């Protein structure tokens, strides 16, 4: 029999530190598969965030430069501007990209930076212990919204991807999910397309990925992928938000 599914080359053998059922690890694999398939491993530089994915540099077998919390778009901009021949991607959580790093992200998109952002939306601050994130949905219980997020007090869930779609320099923005094999395949296609936009030197690309955080959602992995589909998707519907053909 022929091996039809194995670990991609751009993903080191190091076991993930992520919790069981965490979406981060699936997304790591998808990004690595795309890097392999596009043959860009030797000219890719990844920029992981502060967040659960802070150790992403231990997993991707490409050059990796850690960014301060929220600043990945600026760091990637610096890399890409001085070395346009490289492929620069940022890997950021929702707190990283949609709260502390909002300004850097919007302006990178608006400048049409030739970078690719992988935006992992798990509706909480995972690394710091499950506090409210900009993407926490109304009513959702987190450690800092013990009675549920009350929009008039805590603000509404922020749809950063839609905001980025308005920016003239963004070329391709899609929201997907890793809650089922079908969605995972769609996510991979989206990631591939986002990298292609960069390789074709067209502008800013981003894939927002709805991703389970069973630990902070206090759910089993199976419950958490259901919650993504039944609840998160109603607030953050997966779709192509922008595709400048």
């Amino acid at each position, binding site marked *: 029999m022929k091996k039809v599914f194995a670990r991609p080359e751009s993903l080191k053998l190091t076991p993930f530190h992520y919790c069981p059922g965490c979406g981060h690890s699936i997304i790591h694999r998808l990004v690595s598969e795309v890097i392999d398939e596009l043959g860009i491993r030797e000219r890719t530089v990844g*920029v992981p965030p502060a967040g659960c994915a802070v150790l992403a540099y231990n997993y991707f077998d490409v050059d990796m430069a850690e*960014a301060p919390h929220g600043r990945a778009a600026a760091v990637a901009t610096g890399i890409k501007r001085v070395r346009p021949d*490289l492929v620069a991607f940022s890997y950021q959580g929702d707190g990283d990209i949609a709260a502390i790093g909002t300004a*850097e992200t919007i*302006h990178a998109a608006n400048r049409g930076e030739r970078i690719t952002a992988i935006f992992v939306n798990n509706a909480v601050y995972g690394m710091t212990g499950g506090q409210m994130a900009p993407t926490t949905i109304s009513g959702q219980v987190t450690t800092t919204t013990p009675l549920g997020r009350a929009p008039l007090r805590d603000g509404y869930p922020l749809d950063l991807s839609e905001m980025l779609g308005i920016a003239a320099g963004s070329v391709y923005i899609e929201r997907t999910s890793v809650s089922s094999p079908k969605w995972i395949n769609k996510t991979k296609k989206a990631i591939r397309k986002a990298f292609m936009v960069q390789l074709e030197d067209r502008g800013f690309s981003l894939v927002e990925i709805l991703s389970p955080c069973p630990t902070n959602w206090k759910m089993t992995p199976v419950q958490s992928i259901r919650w993504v589909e039944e609840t998160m998707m109603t607030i953050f519907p997966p779709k192509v938000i922008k595709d400048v053909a």
Partner: protein
Amino acid sequence: MSETKEKKKDKKLMRGSHVLGEAAIRAGCRAYFGYPITPQNELPEYMAEQFAQMPDAVFLQAESELASINMVMGASIAGARVMTSSSSPGISLKQEGISYIAGMELPAVIVNMMRGGPGLGNIAPAQGDYFQATKGGGHGDYRLIVLAPAYGQEIADMTRQAFDLADKYRNPVMILGDGMLGQMMEPVVFPDPIDPAQLPAKPWTLTGCKGRPSRIIRSLWLDVNREEELNWRLVRKYEAITAEVVDQEMYLAEDAELIIVAYGTAARIAKGGVQRARAMGIKVGLFRPKTLWPYPSEPLARLADQVDEIIVFEMSTGQMVEDVRLAVEGRCRVSFYGRPGGVVATPEEISRVISSTHHRAHPKKVAGGRASGGSRLTVVG
């Protein structure tokens, strides 16, 4: 600098901020990221204009100082000689990135043309950011190399030096000036330009892992032992820097009984004050640190053995004076004179400070002189 006829021909009359920009380009700087703030806008404007004609150079006006310092980080990671500049409030915003850059051991040149503070303050020349520049500024245990030019020529020379030191030690270097220094038109002879392609290769940059294992540039060290190891390694680096780069100017110090210590614009004013006081017969000299970190403590300590008193003059309420006291270690009296908030003292004013200090220190020497009663000069302004 000796002025042969050749060199005279090369002399250019330029304002300080343009001198800095030109010297940076000649040092092989091909990337600049910044955000407008007075009084340093002439520098980014110069970079924008020059880089517009250089296809391999990157000028980017960022959305904030936070973004610009992180772009500097990225450009440095990718191997560029890179610079950013700002003035006090903007430098505060850059502190996050500066701490990371120091911790990740990345070369970068950061220019602070200081203005009056705290807060928004004003746009007049001041020296209130000494602590921020020399004691770390951001979080964690780190140091910047801090160069303090006082003349146009020195801006040109120190800018070259800043890029070289940054690369050599993989450490951020700050050029600490003020609005006055940036505006002043002075004749300058520039060092010859460097071709960035000829600079030594940096074997740690991230340029894609072609033909080598992939690399990581990180600032997270969850293992406390490795973080401690990094901290001590930085200390050893700082010791090497201290041994190599400490620099100062001494002016009329040989026979001095009184020394005034000042840096940057304040030192220029102080020099005028010294000249006036000398004309009055007071044996006063100037000690001007050219590096603020590392601080020229040893030469200053030797001077302290020779003089009765050291006056520290700063355009602040007294920051460098602490380093002077540490260097002097009680060898002589140290007093302070400050004009904070953007007020620029005059040489006459400084000569009055010198003479009153002198009269107090030597009441008998001064025929008919009026000895001032105070044991210590306090902040005036």
